[in-house]
């Protein structure tokens, strides 16, 4: 299990990385944290002509607040989402969800952009990006463009990234102080890819009813799923156990994954509503804590 030969390129600027992507397109792969790419190389499931290592590009490694946006560079290591005070303060869902990514050894090396670009449907960061209505920033030969996370993830390990583009950052709207968030995932072992999971952000009005609900669900389909039916059914409802459990069932039609070694389709259909329900319940509890001034 050794990597095949490739041309190793380690540009020091985004422009140069984009130039390399433009030159090699689909014959090249971007090496960020390597936690998914290196196994594909050692198993020889990927044989790029050129490997473009973006780890030397300092511009990709910033975490910054810009007005109501938290911008995280693509090269930021995942553990930094857990440790950085700005992230916990502005988008508290992120550190909580990130703690579920693999093991600490993976998060020390794995990057935010790498996880998004890899677009594994069972991964935490694509799911939170969708739930948080984040925007992905990509740069190509003609400049940068932004893509809503919802549109960025297109299918099984497929994104809206063009062959000549490089993912440079992700912009998260700052979570309102009064909102509550919840993240729940179920995996067979600590650190495993989830069998299913859900990220939820909710806002409640003064009567305690849902004014907004945003839920992303992972592990149930080719790509991370926005639970729109669940969300719209909850608006205006009281966050009772019965309401949440009943409405969570709306996710079931979105489960398209088939049977695999670790779970059956029937199980995932059941589990999807369980994680959605639990994530919303956790988010509601947080919202209550916040409105109680805790």
């Amino acid at each position, binding site marked *: 299990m050794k990597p095949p*030969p490739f041309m190793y390129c380690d540009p020091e600027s985004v422009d140069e990385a984009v130039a390399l992507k433009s030159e090699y397109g689909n014959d090249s792969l971007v090496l960020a944290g390597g936690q998914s790419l290196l196994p594909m190389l050692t198993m020889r499931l990927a044989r790029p002509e050129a490997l473009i290592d973006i780890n030397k590009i300092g511009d990709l490694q910033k975490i910054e607040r810009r007005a109501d946006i938290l911008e995280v560079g693509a090269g930021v290591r995942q553990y930094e989402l857990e440790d950085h005070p700005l992230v916990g303060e502005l988008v508290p869902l992120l550190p909580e969800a990130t703690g579920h990514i693999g093991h600490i050894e993976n998060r020390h090396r794995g990057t935010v952009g790498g996880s998004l670009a890899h677009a594994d449907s069972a991964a935490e960061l694509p799911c939170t990006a969708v739930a948080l209505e984040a925007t992905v920033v990509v740069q190509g030969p003609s400049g940068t463009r932004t893509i809503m996370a919802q549109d960025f993830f297109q299918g099984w390990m497929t994104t809206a990234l063009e062959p000549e583009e490089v993912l440079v950052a992700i912009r998260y709207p700052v979570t309102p102080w009064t909102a509550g968030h919840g993240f729940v995932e179920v995996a067979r072992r600590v650190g495993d890819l989830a069998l299913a999971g859900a990220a939820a952000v909710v806002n409640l009005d003064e009567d305690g009813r849902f004014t907004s609900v945003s839920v992303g669900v992972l592990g149930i389909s080719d790509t991370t799923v926005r639970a729109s039916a669940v969300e719209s059914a909850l608006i205006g409802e009281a966050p009772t156990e019965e309401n949440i459990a009943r409405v969570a069932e709306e996710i079931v039609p979105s489960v398209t994954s088939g049977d695999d070694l670790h779970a*059956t389709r029937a199980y995932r259909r059941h589990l999807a509503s369980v994680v959605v329900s639990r994530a919303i319940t956790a988010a509601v509890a947080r919202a209550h804590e916040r409105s109680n001034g805790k």
Partner: protein
Amino acid sequence: MTTEHTDTTEHTDTAQKSGYKYIGKDRKRVEDPRLLVGRGGYIADLKLPGMLHAAILRSPVPHARIRSVDATEALKLPGVVAVLTGEDCKAKMNPCMNFGPATVAQYPLAVDKVRYVGEAVAAVVAESRYLAEDGVDLLEVDYEDLPPVTDPRAAMEPESALLHEEHGSNIGCERTFEFGDVNAAFAGADLVVEDTLHWGRSAGMPMETAGAVAQPGFNGVLEIYCNSLNFSYFSFLIAGALRVPSNKLTMKPVPAGGSFGSKLAAHKVPTLAGFLALRVGRPVSYVEDRIDHLVNSDHHGCDRFYEARMGFRADGTIVGLDIDVVDDYGAYMQFGVGHHGNAFSQVVGPYRFRDVRYRLRAVLTDKCQQGAYRGFGSEVHNWVLERLVDSGAARLGLAPEEIRRRNFIQPDQFPYTIPGGNVYDSGDYPAVLDKALSMIDLDRWRAEQKRLWAQEGRCIGIGLATTQERSVFSSTEFWFLVEKPVLPVTSSPESATVTIDPTGQFQLMLHCQSMWGNSPETVGATVLAEEFGIPPESVNVRYADSAHALPSTGPGGSRYTVMVAGAIRGASRKLRKKLIHIAAHTLEVAAEDLELVDARVQVKDAPETGLTLAELAGTAYFFALSLPEGMTSGLEESYTYDHPYTTLPAPDGSDFGVFYPIMGHACHIAVLEVDPDTGIPSFLDYVAVHDAGTIVNPKSLGGHVTGGATQGIGTTLYEELAYDEDGQFLSWTFRDYLIPTAGEVPPFRIGHVETPSPFTEYGVKGGGEGGRMVAPAAVSAAIDDALREYGMRVRQVPVKPSDIVAAVQAGTVRAEAG
């Protein structure tokens, strides 16, 4: 005599009671310092000048004829030295060593046909492993697909495709054994429980894979360094496969980074490395990578389908057992059906019933062959027995501990001959159960279970299992299940050589590679310390290569501690005798008036008069004229210790004789919670009490118990070497094959009971297979108990979250309907 103690917290000092100074005490292991600084000396660390590396092309299809292998492009690649295929094997070697049917021959590279996904098809030898893998990428194979044979029950049908045409059937072995009268026993039973059970494939899966480095060495001797075991026992069989005279093959032992059975005679790896080295005339390293190991280790564990019945009287007394087992052996049968001999060693478990029927069909399918995995088949039998006992208890309204207590063989019944002829040497099963119960408050847990279910809908389960842990196999079990055995061997010896050098320092030579994570050096040093009164840490331990080795069988079947202790004690007695005679001659005192105490030979009544070992050693080596007449120089003695208690099977097959008589026992109690909505289990408590006779090192034995129990938990809940119905392998990586992490397993609480064996030195019994012999039964019972409101019954392992949720949903539907 039985004594008991609990690890760390309730430790009673065995040594004090027994009078031993070193045996029975927690001691640091002598193996550990080198391992802690990262110098374990593993096979992948070995680099020889000019060494080449091999990588393997593996079959992507389950069953196919190999039309051709085209190596043209691979051989053009700079750095690639050679490409070898099954055609080369067929031309230049004999089939690999094989204890199964001769008509099921195998080679290290597939000859003519591939018979499972992952079977080795060709080897590329190159200047580096990177280049060898580049070469593999360039090979072209033309396969003619054949129908895959994947379901062992369908494989027995006449219309099934055949794996081995020469064998004429996919049934490798079919036998029915009956001891007593099972029909009569069941006719008289008040209750008969029946179950259809499946034990799925898991494997030892050590963190280090198997590997070998072979080189054509001095004097034309082929030298093979290898982390596999047992080769002083049958390196001649590898020589036979390689068509090398056995005195021209030397197996060089290399410590293993774990085995759990998977390196027990892992013969194809060294055979292949040897074959490649002979072809290219240079040293060749072949170390499996993880995919090599997962898909083609030759050591997948048991894969058994059971129809099982157990009869009971109304009071819970077990009256009989009826087993019909189909065992999916995969494509080859290197160890024959020895796994079922293992089941017969403890076929009635710790229980008194006498009537047993056992129908075995060992079936060939397009999967990796079975090898050894901690328990070697007896752990599966334990699970089946305990599943049935629990079923009977539930039906009869008896608590799990109560039905077991009513059926235990009693302490005054030993030695006890079981149906089939094996003998249990000693035991005190009620004491082990009592010890386990004393360590956990079952009444409190049962009350808590009721309360949490009633108040919060939470599902807590308690599972209890009492099983045997046979140790010290005799080689008769290699063949007694076979109708016409080819080589009915009866020896399974172990040897040791003890040397005191001229300065009085000790060397201990072990005659096989036995370091695979266990503590052979600690055991050896502890026994020598006990015999001579020297500090255990001062002993240096070495391993003989096959050219220097005395008869030895190696570790496996929880035998090594018992056997090597016997060998070392035998050699020590000879050395002690020589030392005392030298001292008697020097001091001019009668030998019978001398004793060896604390590294010194002294006069019994006047201990101030004596000679140190160093003084005596100086004399022994350098002052021949001062030695007693007829004595020769030096201080080195060897001893070969044969199996302490083996008898021949009855010629008519009516019994198997005594073959596994050193019988340990254990009780595990698992407490866990299952989330019925997700099917995820989590442990709340776990108690394990083992009786492995006299304990040499309680902490080391405890480590085997916790390690084995963790593997048992893996087998029960996580690990699976899965094939789909088309024969595709589904467990290619560690993302698929789930080994428990620290996050899944409980903090274990360990207790020990000691019932010494009457047949072994110091009364030691084996404990190496530890917790894996017990945990699957306890954990399965706990899962059932947690979900009893839903009618859960674990009928197959691994039991996955989706199985659990499916059972919960079915139970909910039943409850709503009823």
